């Protein structure tokens, strides 16, 4: 009996000490949450974002931190499990008391954590292109909205250089991002005079690995008399079997080009890119862009990979969501300096109009109102070494339109978050 009492006492003392230690610690550091899947189907894409975030935090710390305080990263693994995202987010906000979170890739994970950030008035930086149709006070979107990626990509496919495609296969993983994007694209294609019969929509579950039937269907659809192009919103590790099958089935880019919105340099690392030459990806950044900021960014990440002994450190690449993560963290740091506080509402106010010289070679700006970045758009074709050569780009940064004009009713929505 006394034994147990002793134990309880000890626990209380330990807990008290621990919490004291924590508060003492919290005084000289700012905690920053990193919420990316490090296992499961999305790990192929998200692991690199965690590494980028840690690298950027180290860069900022070396330069003196934020408001003279060092940043302290708190890394959690929501394991590609959407409800777990919400749990981990709550843990970051209530237990670790982070000032800001950088995280999520899939829209379903973002939708899952949203209520948590709204309820606890947290701050989330979301670094990936997405379907739009959302504008939350607590979120900053550093990836592309549909008008900064999907729409220009399809316009390119319909142009002379893109092959003048008249028929479209909209192929995606079965969740909110591909479904909404394809809804927008379908409406957009209709305004361009493409009939419903010339659009085929196909969805596969997360982690799907047998693309034989789908490739056969695409081949058949493409033989109906008009130039066909595929718009792929496949996410996660399904892309590896998809591109392997595409290469093996001999579907060449000159016949049926595939433009992907969630495939970058990182996803192509595990694939033999030679049969894929000419297939496209639309992003706001490519590793192959030549400018001093990008050279520095690539070198910093390569050195980081070697120093941290990442798997296959010799072949690491940079990609668009990594750049968006990098921009996001720097912009947040700038905003905190400006607000002289990590308080959510003050930082949100200070974020408006922040600008940053990005590795894309352009100075990107956070819109004064709509929480999205003004970003340039690039279209790249896959080269034999898995890199992209830019075949089309916008002259300068484009303002994001999170409420797509191609979805009815959106014209009435305001371009800024609802004030509470």
């Amino acid at each position: 009996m006394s034994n147990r009492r002793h134990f309880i006492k000890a626990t209380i003392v330990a807990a008290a000490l621990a919490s004291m230690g924590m508060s003492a610690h919290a005084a000289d550091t700012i905690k920053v949450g990193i919420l990316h899947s490090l296992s499961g189907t999305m790990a192929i894409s998200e692991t690199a974002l965690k590494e980028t975030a840690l690298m950027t935090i180290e860069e900022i710390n070396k330069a003196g931190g934020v408001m003279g305080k060092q940043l302290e990263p708190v890394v959690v693994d929501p394991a590609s499990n959407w409800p777990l995202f919400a749990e981990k987010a709550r843990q970051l906000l209530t237990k670790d008391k982070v000032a800001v979170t950088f995280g999520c890739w899939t829209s379903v994970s973002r939708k899952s954590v949203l209520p948590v950030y709204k309820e606890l008035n947290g701050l989330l930086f979301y670094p990936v292109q997405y379907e739009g149709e959302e504008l939350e006070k607590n979120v900053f979107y550093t990836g592309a909205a549909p008008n900064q990626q999907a729409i220009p990509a399809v316009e390119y496919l319909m142009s002379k250089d893109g092959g003048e495609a008249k028929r479209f296969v909209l192929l995606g993983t079965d969740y909110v991002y591909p479904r909404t994007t394809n809804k927008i694209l379908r409406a957009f294609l209709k305004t361009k005079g493409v009939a419903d019969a010339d659009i085929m929509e196909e969805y596969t579950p997360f982690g799907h690995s047998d693309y034989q039937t789908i490739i056969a269907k695409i081949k058949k659809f493409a033989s109906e008399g008009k130039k066909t192009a595929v718009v792929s919103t496949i996410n996660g590790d399904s892309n590896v079997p998809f591109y392997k099958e595409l290469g093996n089935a001999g579907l060449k880019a000159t016949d049926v080009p595939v433009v992907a919105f969630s495939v970058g340099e990182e996803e192509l690392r595990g694939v033999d890119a030679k049969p894929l030459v000419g297939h496209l990806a639309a992003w706001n950044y490519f590793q192959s862009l030549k400018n001093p900021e990008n050279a520095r960014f690539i070198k910093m990440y390569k050195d980081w990979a070697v120093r941290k002994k990442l798997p296959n450190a010799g072949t690491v690449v940079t990609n668009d969501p990594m750049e968006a993560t990098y921009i996001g963290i720097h912009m947040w740091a700038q905003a905190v300096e400006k607000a002289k506080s990590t308080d959510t509402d003050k930082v949100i106010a200070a974020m408006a109009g922040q600008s940053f010289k990005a590795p894309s070679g352009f100075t990107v700006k956070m819109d004064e109102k709509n929480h999205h970045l003004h970003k340039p758009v690039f279209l790249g074709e896959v080269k034999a070494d898995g890199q992209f050569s830019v075949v089309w780009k916008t002259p300068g940064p484009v303002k994001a339109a999170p409420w797509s004009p191609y979805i009815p009713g959106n014209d009435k929505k305001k371009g800024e978050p609802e004030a509470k």
Partner: protein
Amino acid sequence: MIKKLLLVLLCAAGVSAHAALDPAQVRQLAAEDSADKVAAIRQLTQTADPDAVRVLQAMADDALYVARDKALIISGEQAFDAATGAAVDMPAEPEAVTVNNRLRGELANALAALKLFDADAAVRRASAQALQASADAGMAPLLARALERETDAGIKALLVVAHAQATLGDADPAVRLAAVKALADTASPAVKSMLLPLTDKAGEADDKVRYAAIEAVKAIDGRLAVAENLGRVFSGLSLGSILLLAALGLAITYGVMGVINMAHGELLMVGAYATYGVQSLFRAYAPGLIDWYLPAAIPVAFFTAAAVGVVMERTVIRWLYGRTLETLLATWGISLVLIQAARVAFGAQNVEVANPGWMSGGIEVMPNLLLPWNRIIIVGFAMFVLFLVWVLMNRTRLGMFVRAVTQNRPMAGCVGVHTARIDTMAFALGAGIAGLGGVALSQISNVGPDMGQGYIVDSFMVVVVGGVGQLAGAVWAALGLGIFSKLLEGWAGAVIAKITVLVAIIVFIQKRPQGIFALKGRFVE
């Protein structure tokens, strides 16, 4: 490397042979606008100059650059003037000429057209082949010339098809009619695409040509349908062989020995990781032989998985024989342990297992039926593993003992069979076969710690439908399920197909709980 050497040789030949190309024309290849580039490519093609082949090939290989307002070909450390082929100083910052899909298609056509006049029949055949689905109107005169000169009957036939495509848009209805008739004998989807506009009044004014086009499309459609159905059967066969590879090990551990092994999927995972390990070793110590890592991985995966199987059997499963529920729980626990072990050892991310060079690409059986090598090889590998299991079970002492113990344990013990050791061996065999399945899976799907979870249900499905305790049953069930679900997928999509297959299995098991084949196993008594 060889390509580069060839390039250098070609360049050298260009210098000695004859006068250079028009530098202005060559410079235009590097114009800003794609339309200008296309025009330049077409002009160069019309010259039919062998030098043009060199320049266009360089452009297609991404070796064309611009510096000091001149087009250069850069190979390795050397730069050549594109127009003359003469070596020049390496410029400081050459700007690469970007080639997009449109240009790539244009270049492929141009090169094929230029090579139609090559002295080597093999080169001519390859270029005629390349033009089977992409010849455009501008190439008609060139193709006509090539057709006149050609002596080889096989190449001539190919050229007739290409020429017909190029003349489909001719002003003369008689020429169009001849072209449509020539194309009616093909079976390519691209040709069908070209003919379709002619079946419409808006696209074709001449009735005769239109009817001929409608007939031709019908004929091509028939051939396409044959190829499509063959393709479906093949993909079913391929899925079936994958299911079989995943389930064969379970057919032994569960089917013959009666152990409900929930860790079966993880044994597949062990095999796949063993493949990854062998690949890494080859990369580190024998990069020259990297294409042959896969054969070396087969025994490694077998013995690694078998070793894991032995440990499982000796430490856990042997104490639980006959207690089905406990076995189920214990093996499920083992599966979690194995998944976490893989996470700790290799990280939670998928690892990259590359297809060796000889497994990429495929053979073209018909113009729209291409059988990928990796799938063909996996079908062959499944047959090999099946044969191996059959020999082991029916032609060896071990197999005889396993069957004896399965049928009557006490009796086998009485005649001197060491039953406990046979149990271990049999379980190790089943685990090893699962490891072989893992080698195959590593080639077509992602290798990660929880990859096994996706196959455990399928494996049990195959064994139960086939009839527990019967290897032949597993074969029929795997192939049947594979072909059935692929045919369904063609009509109804992946998700509906999966649901239908599962419902069909439930109904089937209700009607015939013993499966397709039934044999008495140990647990039947």
